[in-house]
């Protein structure tokens, strides 16, 4: 049984401009399906506006999905009553991008870490203190720093506190939304190392959302690439980075500047910018920028299909290998 299964999830926002303005629909998440296992890290990459953050928030139901199903530990949690949802939140936590904004500046670290335990009625006062102290030890912050306020810590320390807060309730799944994007490289690596260590220790699953392809590659077991609200490609991390199938993934991968001046790559430079998600192109949403687009791409909406074993892509120009007789539905 997978830990998390998402079926055709949609998140459409209505944007209304002004008092008498027209309504516009933003299809932030537009039919996303995937599964992830306990202990796995699924990376979600994509450029701004591709819907990766909305996906994370919708899975946590911080925003109710427009349609589709979210199945967590075999239980459909899409329409749970509030009380049950609260109990479930213990198992799913989120780490935000900005450690400055996501920690209440008026609370001490102790309070920040203890609050989730109190809210969910965990343990006695003493037991809670114990949990907090053992957590703080794991993230490399000293006990005597517990009564300090967030502003007294550096960016990296704050993000580690944010991670510790997510861990207090012993969750199964952590949705990490750009957790290291606001950090400098040397600090970023500290936080990534910590996340890997914690994953091993607690058998955590990460849904790791990021725009940074090298960070995603470093931490993920599988990677899904999103473009305008849809997954265009999903595969094991090695497979995806070695053998990208979708033209968008190919362009994305070659676009990343490598920190190695001795290697020069043939870069696929895409024309133009991301179209607006309020008005996505017809057919394949990528056809306006795709170097291999044909007239059919304008009309035909490609489906996510298994092209190679365990490697799914949604492009009509990528043909499944003869050997793998793939089916249409997601395995």
């Amino acid at each position, binding site marked *: 049984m997978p830990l998390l299964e998402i079926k055709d999830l949609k998140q459409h926002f209505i944007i209304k*401009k*002004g008092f*008498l*303005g*027209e309504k516009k629909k933003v299809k932030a998440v537009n039919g996303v399906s995937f599964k992830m296992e306990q202990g796995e890290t699924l990376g979600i990459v994509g450029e701004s506006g591709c819907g990766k953050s909305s996906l994370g928030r919708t899975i946590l139901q911080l925003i109710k999905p427009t349609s589709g199903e979210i199945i967590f530990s075999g239980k459909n949690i899409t329409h749970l009553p509030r009380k049950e949802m609260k109990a479930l939140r213990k198992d799913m936590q989120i780490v935000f991008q900005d450690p400055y904004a996501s920690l209440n500046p008026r609370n001490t670290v102790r309070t920040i870490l203890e609050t989730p335990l109190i809210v969910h009625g965990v343990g006695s006062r003493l037991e809670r203190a114990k949990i907090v102290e053992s957590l703080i030890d794991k993230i490399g912050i000293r006990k005597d720093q517990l009564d300090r306020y967030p502003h007294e810590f550096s960016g990296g320390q704050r993000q580690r506190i944010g991670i510790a807060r997510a861990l207090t309730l012993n969750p199964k799944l952590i949705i990490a939304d750009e957790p290291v994007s606001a950090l400098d490289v040397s600090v970023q690596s500290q936080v990534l190392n910590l996340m890997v260590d914690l994953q091993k220790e607690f058998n955590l699953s990460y849904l790791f959302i990021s725009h940074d392809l090298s960070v995603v590659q470093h931490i993920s077991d599988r990677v899904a690439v999103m473009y305008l609200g849809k997954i265009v490609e999903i595969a094991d991390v090695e497979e995806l980075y070695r053998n990208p199938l979708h033209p968008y993934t190919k362009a994305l991968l070659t676009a990343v500047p490598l920190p190695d001046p001795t290697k020069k790559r043939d870069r696929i430079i895409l024309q133009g910018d991301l179209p607006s998600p309020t008005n996505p192109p017809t057919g394949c949403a990528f056809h306006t920028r795709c170097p291999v687009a044909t007239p059919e791409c304008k009309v035909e909406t490609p489906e996510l299909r298994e092209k190679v074993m365990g490697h799914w892509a949604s492009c009509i120009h990528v043909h499944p290998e003869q050997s793998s007789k793939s089916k249409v539905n997601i395995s």
Partner: protein
Amino acid sequence: MDALRYTLKRILLMIPILIGISMLTFFISNTIPGDPARLAAGPYADAKVIEELQEKMGLNDPVYIQYFRYMKSLLQGDLGNSNYSHQPVMEDIKQYFPATLELTFFSMFITILIGIPLGVISASKKDKIADQFARVLALIGVAMPAFWLGIILLLFFYLKLGVLPGSGRLDTGLAPPETITGMYTIDAILTGNWTVFTSAVIHLILPGITQAAVTIGMITRMTRSSMLEVLRSDYIRTAFAKGGSERRVLYGHALRNGMMPIMTLLGMTFGHSLGGSVLVESVFSWPGLGKYAVNAITYLDFPAVMAVTILIAVLFIIVNLVIDILYQVVDPRLNYE
């Protein structure tokens, strides 16, 4: 086209607001104790006369009938007769309102001319002497009661030096110009009567400055804080990086970007002044709307109160609309939606 459609839309939206305001004023005024008929009839009238008058004025009908009757004549441009001046309220307003309008325009003119540059200088010379000076000046302007400043100015320029007149809109003996707009200065220009024009302007100076003192203070402070925020923006740095001089950056880039909150405040003070500043008008015996309103309330002059309230509401809505349209002229990011 977009701008026109937007404006029309906004004007149509005014209708329900005005109906709401008129209803509210009408019903609230009706619950206030005091009998207009008794007041109109005078203190020595006997009960029978009052009763007849009540019947004649329609005061015995249900309130909503009275309201509909009022609205019907309002739409025909009839605001009823004042119980105090015994002439149509419309005539009263035609007489008093232009005086207030003229004073407001004049004081707003001074405000913009002094307040905005003072704020800009204050922001660009932050913490330097010019800034300290402007800030103290602004603080004094805001903190000082208008009537007190008015009296001081009156004592000094009128009584002591005798260089400026202290009351009214024209020198005694001068006949007002032919009524076109009702504003003496403008009418004098239109009819080419320069003696009247000079006299009208001179009479505007003291009440104009008094009324402007407070708003200058507010506008200076608002301009300063708005400009300080704008001056921190990246595009200001870009403008300097291009080689722009301080003057060019301040007035060519920063001021227009800082205009939004200034415009809002200007609109609000403008709308407010149009209702007539009772204190300033009293100190300088300025025959404006503020004085008229106070009289109307004191004498329970119901038609006059109604008319003034509706007039002020309409003016506020119009000023707001103008400001909203100006926003869009200033900032292309706000489209007509």
